[in-house]
């Protein structure tokens, strides 16, 4: 049974329509990530689910029950906020138990739950501190603790990691993932960081301007983006979107890309596709390799590419990024750290055509 069903949800502030016809449904144990650029309505949607904002149209069902008009505390949810929203004057322990206390849970149960959650999150030594004396990561844990003691049917997270520094973000991400696996909890999670979305989600909802762009598993979203917005948004560095010309010839598809020097780059997709003349070729940086003149891995399509002029080289530890200029835009390739690529020099690159996407330049929709 789906734990959360959202049907034709609408939300406006006065005349401003923030959310348009949202339909989402998730099953028990799912980890749904809402992702999208700032201001696209992610928080608003989450707040609607929590009951913190009244909805303008449609229905929300949690565990099969229509919760329209039900107050947040009766929706059997718990929520973790971006700023953690810890009660600043209460100790960590009270922050966690305060809700129980108000609900009249008896002392012994409170203490037991607190102890359990504190152990789980490894915050035992912090219980007597005030939030002001905690680091960002510790605050984050306490906020999670406050949510965990509720044992809710549904967890809601609103960008819980965005206030942490890069390092901490990675390790907290792992912890949340672990928690999800351990508790088998149902989670709706908001972020604008697509890496977070990819690593955490079992299902991803990509939003833009209050409209859902694509719903799917991380792999679906990453490998088969529904449109150019999703393609560009998911993945870092972003998918290269290269304007190109296509024509079908000899049962294969020929793709022509403008190049700064030495005439257009022509590559051949062995599959005959129904493509318009003008297309946008989407290819992820890791699907552009140093050309070796042979198939990169057995069973894959043959290499297709050529020599290009490298603008910038950015070594980044495990990888090296090389930026060139094709079809009028910068194109990034993710190469091995050992690669001999140098800036301002020609270098042979090849596209893994089994993984490219084709988009229509008019409406941005996927063509293959």
């Amino acid at each position, binding site marked *: 049974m789906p734990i959360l069903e959202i049907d034709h949800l609408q939300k406006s502030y006065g005349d401003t329509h923030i959310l348009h016809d949202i339909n989402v449904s998730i099953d028990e144990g799912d980890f749904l990530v809402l992702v999208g650029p700032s201001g696209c309505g992610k928080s608003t949607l989450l707040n609607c689910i929590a009951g913190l904002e009244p909805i303008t149209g449609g229905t929300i069902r949690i565990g099969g029950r229509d919760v329209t008009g039900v107050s947040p505390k009766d929706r059997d949810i718990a929520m973790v906020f971006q700023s953690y929203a810890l009660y600043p*004057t209460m100790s960590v322990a009270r922050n966690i138990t305060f809700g129980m206390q*108000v609900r009249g849970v008896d002392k012994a149960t409170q203490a037991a739950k607190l102890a359990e959650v504190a152990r789980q999150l490894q915050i035992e030594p912090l219980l007597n501190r005030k939030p002001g004396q905690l680091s960002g990561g510790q605050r984050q844990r306490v906020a999670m603790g406050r949510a965990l003691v509720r044992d809710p049917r549904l967890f809601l997270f609103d960008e819980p990691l965005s206030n942490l520094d890069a390092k901490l973000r990675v390790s907290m991400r792992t912890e949340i993932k672990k928690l999800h696996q351990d508790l088998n909890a149902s989670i709706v999670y908001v972020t604008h960081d697509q890496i977070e979305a990819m690593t955490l989600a079992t299902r991803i909802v990509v939003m833009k301007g209050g409209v859902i762009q694509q719903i799917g598993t991380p792999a679906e979203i990453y490998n088969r983006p529904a449109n150019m917005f999703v393609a560009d948004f998911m993945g870092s560095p972003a998918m290269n979107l290269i304007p190109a010309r296509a024509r079908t010839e000899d049962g294969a598809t020929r793709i022509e890309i403008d190049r700064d020097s030495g005439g257009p780059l022509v590559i051949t997709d062995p599959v005959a596709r129904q493509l318009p003349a003008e297309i946008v070729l989407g290819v992820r940086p890791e699907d552009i390799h140093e050309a070796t003149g042979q198939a990169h891995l057995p069973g894959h399509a043959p290499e297709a590419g050529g020599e290009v002029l490298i603008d910038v080289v950015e070594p980044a530890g495990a990888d090296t990024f090389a930026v060139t200029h094709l079809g009028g835009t910068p194109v990034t390739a993710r190469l091995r750290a050992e690669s001999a690529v140098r800036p301002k020099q020609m270098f042979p690159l090849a596209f893994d055509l089994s993984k490219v996407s084709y988009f229509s330049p008019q409406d941005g929709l996927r063509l293959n």
Partner: protein
Amino acid sequence: MEWLERNVPKLVLAPSFVAILVFVYGFIGWTAWVSLTKSKLMPRYEIDGFGQYGRLVASPRWDVAMDNLFIFGALFIVISMVVGLMLAIFLDQQIRSEGVLRTIYLYPMALSLIVTGTSWKWILNPGLGIQEMVRGWGFESFTFDWLIRPEMAIYTVVIAAVWQASGFVMALFLAGLRSVDTEIIRAAQVDGIPTHRIYTAIIIPTMAPIFLSAFIVLAHLAIKAFDLVIALTNGGPGYATDLPATYMYAMAFSRGDLGQAAASAMIMMMVIFAIVVPYLYSELRPRRDH
């Protein structure tokens, strides 16, 4: 030139520094000096010891003034805070005509009691004001005659003072309420905390710095309360509503007893010092701005 450039900030502050040094601390020093003399009508500068302080301590009127300061100060501060906080919380509930109400609550701060004193005197006067009016409605036994009862008169001063300052306190608290992170309130709502508990357990405790600011402003008004008493009771009945400020003024300017006035001023200043210095310390204690 380099030197000038580097020291511009200090040079810019220098006039203020000199002014404060002379016109605040110099004058406090002068007062301290005069409090040790037998100055009468005009200041004299021969030191005479602590006689003035002895007289002050022995004076029943000064006793009354100090008692009044503590009664008045405590009540005024507590009631203003309670009323101000209550109004701020109520106004924070998406009230329709908030702007108008806020202005009404705030305007007394704009008026001095030189202006409104007479009006308050009438309102509180049993023969003219509220008591008379309520009796006029048929409640013959209604009594509200604090203004003329020596043991109650100080409370009428409290009423007028609360009238004047509580709106300002309301403004401070409203500003504070508005700056509380809305996510905290939402978190509490999801946590199932009822609205009144959200205020009492979460929001109000986070406003501690504002309580401190309000306390300081009110304490400073209480200690300086002068116009208020002069306009409302002129210290009466008898000297039942004397405060240190009015005592000092009477000594200095109607009695021609400057030494005595200076001594009382020094005591007042010590009270202020005791209140303000901890505040200044907490305000300026080094902390990390983020």
